[in-house]
């Protein structure tokens, strides 16, 4: 023990240790690399995409993949590869964007409920329970109907319906942390509430929140595609995986390429995020090593 400690004298911080554990999970690392690549691609999509997403080539409708159209063309002769890139970009925007909304609402509601307790907690948690038990997809449809089908409004709608899990998580952690012994110790030392929250509560909540966000991103992407499938997603000709798959299904017997590529990139992206989420969950829990 003595020896072991001396070797690690510089100390392994929580984050350094977490990264060490994360690196051991090969699938998570692969997922992370994939995600970094698609984020970079998404930033530069307008320059990378060979064609605009809405440029039709009426002479080349339903074309199979070729040197000119790498992933073929659709019913209007639009380049499937370009459309896929834009769909990916939209999906990432909605995935990350919706989680920002989730984070804001969830943290606010969860921490108010957790810190205040009592009746406010009861009321907030009742609302959260309804949100949690309710098939939120319906709310999404109604919200999108109300707010319109823009990229931003969809992102907000997904966030507005998806915060219940985050609120529960934050509340649970606040309830636990505010009575945890080390927080009690800080209080006994005479620390002010603001200091306790900043130095004791927030840092210890970060891990689980990050994990929850990591799982929330694919969920957001998923919901957008679901909306798009029933014609409530982003407005055509703007592509999304949902409306591309929806359109492709109509021609699935004759031109399966129209659906194969979006389905595969879509599924791959969701899996990548989930593996990263899994990796983070194990990595950010120090007990998982034992």
């Amino acid at each position: 023990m003595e020896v072991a400690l001396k070797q690690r004298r510089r100390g392994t911080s929580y984050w350094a240790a977490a990264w060490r554990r994360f690196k051991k999970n090969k699938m998570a690392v692969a997922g992370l690399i994939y995600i970094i690549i698609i984020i970079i691609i998404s930033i530069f999509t307008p320059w990378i995409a060979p064609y605009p997403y809405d440029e039709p080539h009426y002479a080349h409708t339903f074309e199979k993949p070729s040197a000119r159209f790498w992933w073929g063309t659709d019913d209007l002769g639009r380049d499937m590869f370009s459309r896929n890139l834009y769909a990916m970009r939209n999906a990432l925007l909605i995935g990350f964007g919706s989680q920002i909304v989730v984070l804001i609402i969830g943290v606010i509601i969860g921490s108010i409920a957790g810190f205040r307790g009592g009746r406010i907690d009861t009321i907030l948690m009742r609302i959260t329970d309804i949100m949690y038990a309710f098939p939120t997809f319906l709310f999404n449809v109604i919200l999108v109907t109300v707010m319109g089908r823009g990229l931003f409004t969809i992102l907000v709608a997904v966030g507005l319906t998806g915060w219940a899990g985050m609120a529960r998580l934050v509340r649970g952690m606040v309830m636990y942390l505010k009575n945890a012994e080390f927080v009690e110790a800080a209080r006994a030392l005479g620390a002010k509430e603001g200091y306790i929250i900043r130095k004791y509560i927030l840092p210890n909540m970060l891990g689980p929140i990050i994990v929850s966000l990591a799982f929330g991103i694919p969920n957001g992407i998923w919901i957008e595609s679901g909306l798009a499938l029933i014609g409530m997603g982003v407005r055509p000709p703007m592509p999304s995986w949902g409306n591309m798959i929806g359109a492709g299904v109509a021609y699935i017997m004759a031109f399966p390429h129209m659906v194969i590529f979006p389905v595969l990139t879509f599924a791959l992206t969701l899996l990548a995020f989930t593996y990263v989420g899994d990796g983070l969950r194990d990595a950010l829990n120090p007990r998982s090593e034992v």
Partner: protein
Amino acid sequence: MPELLVVKNLKKYFPVRKKLLKAVDNVSFSIEQGETLGLVGESGSGKSTLGRCVLRLIEPDSGEIIFDGVDLRKLKGEELRQRRRFMQIIFQDPLASLNPMMTIGQNIEDPLVIHNIGTKEERRRAVEELLEIVGLGRDLIDAFPHEFSGGQQQRVGIARALALNPKFIVADEPVSSLDVSIQAQIVSLLYELKIRFKISYLFISHDLAVVRYLSDKVAVMYLGAIVEYAPKEELYENPLHPYTRALLASVPKMPKDGERQKRFLALKGEVPSPIDLPPGCRFQSRCEYVMDVCRKQEPAFREVSPGHFVACHLV
């Protein structure tokens, strides 16, 4: 010696499903400067709640806590915060009591940061000194709590409590989660600190031997109330309350002179639920000398010989 802490008629009730859990029920005691009070009790006796009430980490319902001449219950916000420099706490679970996101050094330094004491370098030097006082190497300053063994973690907890030079420390079962050899180390460290810095402890434990070693006076708690309170030697040599007697008799003793004990004097039953106690003496359900009066009337907590208080109809 002047009295450092006087607790009078302290009460803390918790509502549990429309019933009352009397965790601390009208408790009074006092501790002189440099003196240690041992607080003995089994689970559910309310000893930990009492310890936290004294520091106002749990807000008591009523009573007085006079620390250094000031009633803590009358203090608000900043005043109380400043007072906290002089009274500290050490916890049972050393790992849980340290902030896992801070290094050992930062954990120990934190009280100084909170009270804005010294420059960065001065604080660093203070932390190194504290590490040495509690018997840890300076080179461990940048390690994290989870890399330590339980005994080392508890030393860090003690160093943090010492950082502000407190006069009084509540030690809430500080050794009960540790191994025997480590227990002994921590107990002797606490003893050494008591002598060296003239610290008063409220030493909470279920272990009668540890309490005897560190305390000057001992209070025995049962279901929220102190049933017996006396100077140490008096309590161990001449226990009066049937519960205290049973506690002392149920612990195996070191058979140094070859006489071994295969059977132990055992109290019947177990600690009943502290919710909705019946009228009369709270020990009635387990007392072998129970009388009618015990079931009707709560015994008064009275002084039977100088400094020796007991709450029992039989005494």
